[in-house]
């Protein structure tokens, strides 16, 4: 295997075996799927230019790079400043390994020859790369002979990495967070949690509202507060609208009052009203835990009419587990599972198939009790009712689980 570290510090000799300098860096042009080496950066000796096009290289090994032209005819590579310098810009930096879904550091870079081109194909993130850089790979071999176990070679393919760097330079090179944005929001949240504040912001800025909202829901309170503190009011309001109202309310509750009012004012009236209502409930109650996104239908509908309405409204996944049946005063009369609805004959009246004994919890129920009810009756969601039995919202199983799970299981601590 060829590595960047093999090249660094190698002597560069011209066609007459005259030394013109040593290798300082390799320069690549970013392209899909693999960047191609275009030039060598030198520590020049004897008046050689600081960069040489890769086309001038005839042969190389780990000690020497031989050119196919005389020193006198060398010219500087023209695009050096607009392309990526591997040692300067990539080596030793942090990157996101989108396969392993974590933040890792570049210990070395793997290159490969293909069609007389040298391509950047992989990133070495393992202990072997570190030992190669330290010049002690030999010790690794001895260790292997002694113990039988090897230091693992851990190389991530270049097409699975996403840069963390969010400076001017990466922007200019149009290195985006495309690969990262395709991950599951829970994974993005975990990666974001491992980064510094600046990089977090850059990643959130590159996500669309939906993904940003889902990622924020999965993030720790600290990350949430910090991201929200930095976003413009407009963007923050857009993201909050895309979140489920209960999560948005939790987040807003942690903000200073002034900022909270500003953001709510910028949100769409409907969403804002949901959130404001949820904000009136105390955090550690069913009211604080519930979401106001649920499906409630009048008792007079038929199964077919109900399904038609569902198609029309396209409710979110977590709010379609159950369809609640209410009277004119919103009092809870019964409940239907989606299954009940689908297997019923189209013209069946809802009143005939609904389950009349509805398990519900009061607004001030404690979260542990809500979770216990959900567990005991094997529910996916439980309705929350006020003193007059009017449905106010539902607590879904995922939110209830978050309340009773030990924090350590879910949350990865950030030590500093």
């Amino acid at each position, binding site marked *: 295997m060829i590595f960047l570290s093999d090249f660094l510090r190698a002597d560069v000799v011209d066609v007459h075996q005259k030394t013109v300098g040593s290798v300082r860096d390799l320069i690549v042009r970013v392209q899909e799927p693999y960047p191609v080496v275009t030039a060598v950066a030198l520590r020049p000796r004897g008046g050689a230019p600081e960069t040489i096009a890769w086309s001038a290289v005839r042969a190389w090994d780990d000690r020497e790079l031989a050119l196919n032209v005389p020193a006198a005819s060398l010219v500087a590579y023209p695009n050096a400043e607009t392309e990526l310098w591997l040692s300067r810009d990539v080596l030793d930096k942090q990157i996101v390994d989108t396969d392993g879904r974590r933040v890792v550091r570049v210990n070395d870079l793997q290159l490969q020859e293909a069609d007389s081109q040298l391509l950047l194909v992989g990133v070495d993130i393992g202990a072997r790369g570190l030992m190669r850089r330290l010049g002690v790979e030999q010790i690794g071999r001895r260790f292997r002979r002694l113990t039988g176990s090897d230091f693992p070679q851990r190389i991530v393919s270049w097409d699975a990495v996403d840069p963390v760097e969010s400076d001017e330079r990466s922007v200019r090179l149009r290195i985006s967070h495309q690969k990262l944005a395709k991950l599951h929001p829970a994974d993005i949240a975990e990666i974001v949690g491992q980064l510094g504040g600046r990089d977090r912001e850059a990643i959130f800025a590159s996500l669309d509202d939906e993904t940003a909202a889902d990622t924020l829901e999965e993030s720790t309170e600290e990350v949430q507060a910090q991201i929200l503190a930095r976003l413009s009011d407009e963007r923050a309001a857009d993201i909050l609208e895309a979140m489920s109202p209960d999560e948005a309310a939790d987040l807003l509750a942690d903000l200073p009052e002034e900022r909270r009012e500003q953001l709510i004012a910028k949100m769409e009236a409907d969403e804002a009203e949901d959130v404001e209502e949820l904000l009136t409930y105390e955090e550690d109650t069913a009211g604080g835990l519930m979401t106001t996104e649920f499906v409630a239908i009048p008792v007079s509908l038929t199964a077919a009419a109900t399904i038609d309405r569902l198609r029309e409204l396209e409710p979110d996944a977590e709010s379609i587990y159950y369809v609640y049946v209410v009277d004119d005063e919103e009092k809870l009369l019964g409940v239907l599972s989606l299954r009940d609805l689908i297997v019923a004959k189209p013209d069946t009246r809802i009143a005939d198939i609904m389950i009349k004994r509805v398990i519900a919890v009061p607004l001030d129920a404690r979260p542990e009790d809500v979770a216990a009810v959900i567990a005991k009756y094997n529910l996916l969601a439980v309705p929350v009712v006020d003193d007059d039995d009017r449905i106010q919202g539902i607590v879904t199983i995922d939110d209830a689980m978050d309340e009773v799970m030990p924090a350590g299981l879910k949350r990865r601590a950030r030590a*500093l």
Partner: protein
Amino acid sequence: MRIGRPTTLRPLRSRAERAADRRSAQRPRRLAPMWRYLAVVGPGLIVANAGNDAGGIFTYSNVGAKYGLGLLWAMLPICVCLIIVQEMVARLGTVTGKGLMDLIRERFGVRWTLFASAVVIVANGGTTLAEFAGVAGALGLLGVPRWIAVLGAAAMIGVLVLRANRRMVERVFLALGLAFFSYIITAFLVPVDWRAVGHDLVVPSLSHGGVSSGAYIADLIALVGTSITPYMQLFLQSSIVDKGTAESDYKYVRADVISGSLFAVAVAAFIVITTAFTLNLHGFAGQGLSSSSGAQEAASALAPLAGSHAAQLFAVGLLGASLLAAAVLPLSTAFVVCEAFGAERSVQAGFNEAPLFFTLFIGLLAVGAGIMLIPGVPVSGVAIGTQVLDGILLPVLLVFIIVLANDRRLLGRRRNGPVYNAIAVALATVLSVLTAFLVITAFLPSSS
């Protein structure tokens, strides 16, 4: 039928009615906990305060007891240097958005990172040891046997790290550390000669008060090492990075760092002054704290304020300060080193997934607690000795910081100016010369 807001069904209660309901909702949704307010205290203030830990308390008390006001002059240059160093670190963190070890790795490569990591591990290992000495000393004053104190603290830290809300814990310990304000109060209760204080603060006295020059230099290095701890620099930059402070807010960061430094040095100076007008006058001149019963002696400086409860007051403050640092140090050291090498770093990952992280964390904790478990290891001797180590290792880290803070690519127009470099280089040089001197005197027969 409705989703969320009613579409056709709902308007049984009008909007106004519901708004009225909302207003009448009796309890607010969240009682913002106290620590949320404390969260606005900037990293600069917290870090500078955390610098007044076990090592600091013993070193300052010892200097005041041994030399009276004789080393007070050092506090002003130390203050200037502390501000300069912290400001560089804060600037690096704010502009680059990266931690100190990250920058060392990215700028200097693998070899230098290995070297810097070794320095950080040794320095922070020493400081962790000092914190355990502080725990042993504090609980010793309250009558708790040392082995229970040390093992209890180590176990508690292990549990806290795995379970609790770290930030809240930090703030509780920080609050306990406020007991050291009592030094400032005490300074106004005992007859302090403020004219002498003013004079000795600005006019350096070179008399050793009968102390050998080797010991004098060691005390001076300890004084610098405990005021400008290597670990404070790492911690400060990390917390700024974690907060994601914008470069445009840099002026606030600087104000925070400067006020934090001034505050920390002021507290340190008051400990020296108070002990100078209590302990120094009562038979400690030229001797300093005894190595083994130093906690008891240091505590007696607070007697004018707390009378017979001086030991308890001192113990509470010392315990808070020591536990705070002992909880944060091993964890943050393991974290920054793992981050620099790209190794897995998460408390939740478990040993098999994050072997380096856990080896470092448990290793530092074990070294700190383990050494203090050895019978007869002196509390204040260890607490002060480790500060000498910090002072010796500081210049190494300082060189990295200075080179980074001069990097045009990293900081652009915010890189160091010549005055900065002059002061920072002078500090590194003076410390290195003092260290060399200390090493030489250690091998030569004492001249006193």
